[in-house]
């Protein structure tokens, strides 16, 4: 995992962490069968934070962020998103999901719909936005991720980087207050990684609350305000990026950093 240089000035004027709590995870545990994947997770995310979650493969990073919009169910502890607790109440779940955007490693675009339809589907059916308005919003965000001219193509006709940007635009069309990213760049070539990171940086510049599982340490250094290191289903260390990279505390973190930064 190389560290891709981010060669642009980052505009930090709107990147402000507020006091308002956005996500609160309290003593959360999760098992797959008898396997204890997440152990006693405590995490508070304030609105406007940009958090990068790192850790070795199998450490439970994906599982953690998938619990936040309940793609996975936790068995004990509490998760509150914008003050709403995730329980088995379907109404709450759908509400939270429509306010929390998510991007996956493999994009998960809908291959039978055009790019535009992918982007307008949820606003029309979940938010009940009039079609005309939904299309305008979709075009606005497609322009933002710089692919408005592909609107009438199908996902299968786009490159990986373009598909991931469409996936981001599709989430943004729901006007989410939090964005979750699960290794959004790890299925992509370096050139495409840059396109997608650029889009993510722009989002951060606008003050979006973001949780990213990623191996892009350049992104973590420059954009994140906090890096969380996980191992064996636990949060082992968290710190500001500078401190995290230059002065890691735990042995496990040091080992991990020396492996991925390659020195």
């Amino acid at each position: 995992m190389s560290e891709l240089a981010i060669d642009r000035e980052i505009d930090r004027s709107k990147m402000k962490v507020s006091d308002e709590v956005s996500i609160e995870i309290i003593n959360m545990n999760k098992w797959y069968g008898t396997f204890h994947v997440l152990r006693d997770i405590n995490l508070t995310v304030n609105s406007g934070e940009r958090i990068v979650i790192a850790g070795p493969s199998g450490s439970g990073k994906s599982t953690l962020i998938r619990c936040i919009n309940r793609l996975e169910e936790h068995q004990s502890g509490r998760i509150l998103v914008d003050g709403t607790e995730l329980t088995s109440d379907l109404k709450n779940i759908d509400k939270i999901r429509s306010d929390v955007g998510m991007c996956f490693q493999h994009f998960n675009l809908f291959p039978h719909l055009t790019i535009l339809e992918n982007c307008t589907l949820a606003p029309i059916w979940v938010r009940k936005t009039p079609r005309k308005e939904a299309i305008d919003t979709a075009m606005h965000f497609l322009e933002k991720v710089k692919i408005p001219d592909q609107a009438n193509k199908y996902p299968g006709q786009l490159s990986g980087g373009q598909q991931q940007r469409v996936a981001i635009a599709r989430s943004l069309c729901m006007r989410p207050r939090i964005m979750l990213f699960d290794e959004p760049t790890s299925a992509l070539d370096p050139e495409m990684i840059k396109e997608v990171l650029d889009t993510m940086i722009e989002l951060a510049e606008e003050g979006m609350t973001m949780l990213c599982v990623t191996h892009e340490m350049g992104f973590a250094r420059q954009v994140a305000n906090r890096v969380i290191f996980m191992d064996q289903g636990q949060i082992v260390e968290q710190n500001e990026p500078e401190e995290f990279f230059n002065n890691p505390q735990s042995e496990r973190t040091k080992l991990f950093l020396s492996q991925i930064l390659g020195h």
Partner: protein
Amino acid sequence: MSKQIAYVRTEMLPQQAPPSTSVGAIGWMRANLFSGWLNTAITLVSLLVILTIAVEILPWVLSPTWGGTSLNECRELLAAADHGSGACWGVIRERWIQLLFGFYPPELYWRPILAFVLLALALAPILFADKVPAKLLVFSAAYPFIFPWLLWGGMIWGPLAAAAGFVLGAIAYRVVSGAFSSLLGVIAGVVVALLWWLLLSGFITGLLDSILPIGLEPVESRKFGGFMLSITIGVVAIACSLPLGIVLALGRQSDLMIVKYLCVGFIEFIRGVPLITLLFVASTLLNIFMPPGTNFDIILRVLIMVTLFASAYMAEVIRGGLAALPKGQYEGADSLGLNYWQAQRLIIMPQALKISIPGIVSTFIGVFKDTTLVSIIGLLDPLGLSNAIRADANWNGIVWELYGFIALIFFFFCFGMSRYSMYLERKLQTGHR
């Protein structure tokens, strides 16, 4: 001076036609039939086989016996024409109407004909959604009520009352789901429709029948026969088994234990029993369980059995399509906040059905051909009729011509369905991996 390596083209070459050996008929044959010695040998042998068969069969098919009115007369005609062996097409000329309509009253043939013409009209907006105006869908929705009325006749109020139940249910759903929740709306819709059908509609249709007797002359089920019967059973079973199959497939994947095991039990039971058995149950056993005096139409019973049978197979085909969808599609839909039914309707089913098109159409074709089994319980489908025709003293002993004709018509329909499925697959291709 050293050798000149610089070169500048001063004249552009005009575009030329490709050599005739690579395009057109000759090029095609070269590429596809004679591309090597093995291919050439196979081509020649195949041609020989096809030719031999054609030489044997063609004179038989083209026999001059259209006029014969009995097998003996046909043989005399053949002998007179010095034609050797030949087909006795007289039987088809004499009986084709019967093979199409069974014993349906001849003066009423216009009704099944109209019904099937309208069927084409009703199917058009469903089968060719991008070429036919969507407004025709209104007619498609009304067609299930027009169809039985045209075929069986009777007062118009019966089918109208049946349709009114759906309309009332829909109105109840609108009102209640607008005011309360959509689940309550569904319940209200179903309750209102059931109340109407069970309690009110009988009384009101009775009343209207006596006040305003508008209707068609009724035709009894036992007069139905021929391809009209096959197509009726086939179309109804096909049209009902697809939605039922979808529901069963979803039920089988449900998290609700009871629903899941009911669906699994139903599917496995139906698939474990031959259709013939179900048809026998429909024709004989059901009468035993019915209170005496109830008249439960035999064709209706058969329709129900064939539909249930087809829907179990359909459910498994669709389950295959569902299983082939990557988990990411469910997660993509979930992460956007779509609820279960929206995700199924907008994301999962369109893709799962598309993947299953070949299997679905195979099941359709199977169902359509299985309709011939109803001859065993005494319905006069084309095969049942062919037995009757062969029992006729005039045509005793005729086989090939009759079955050949029936096979040809079945082939026509099944081949049509198969071609349509290929067309649909091509049309729905959106270039994803």
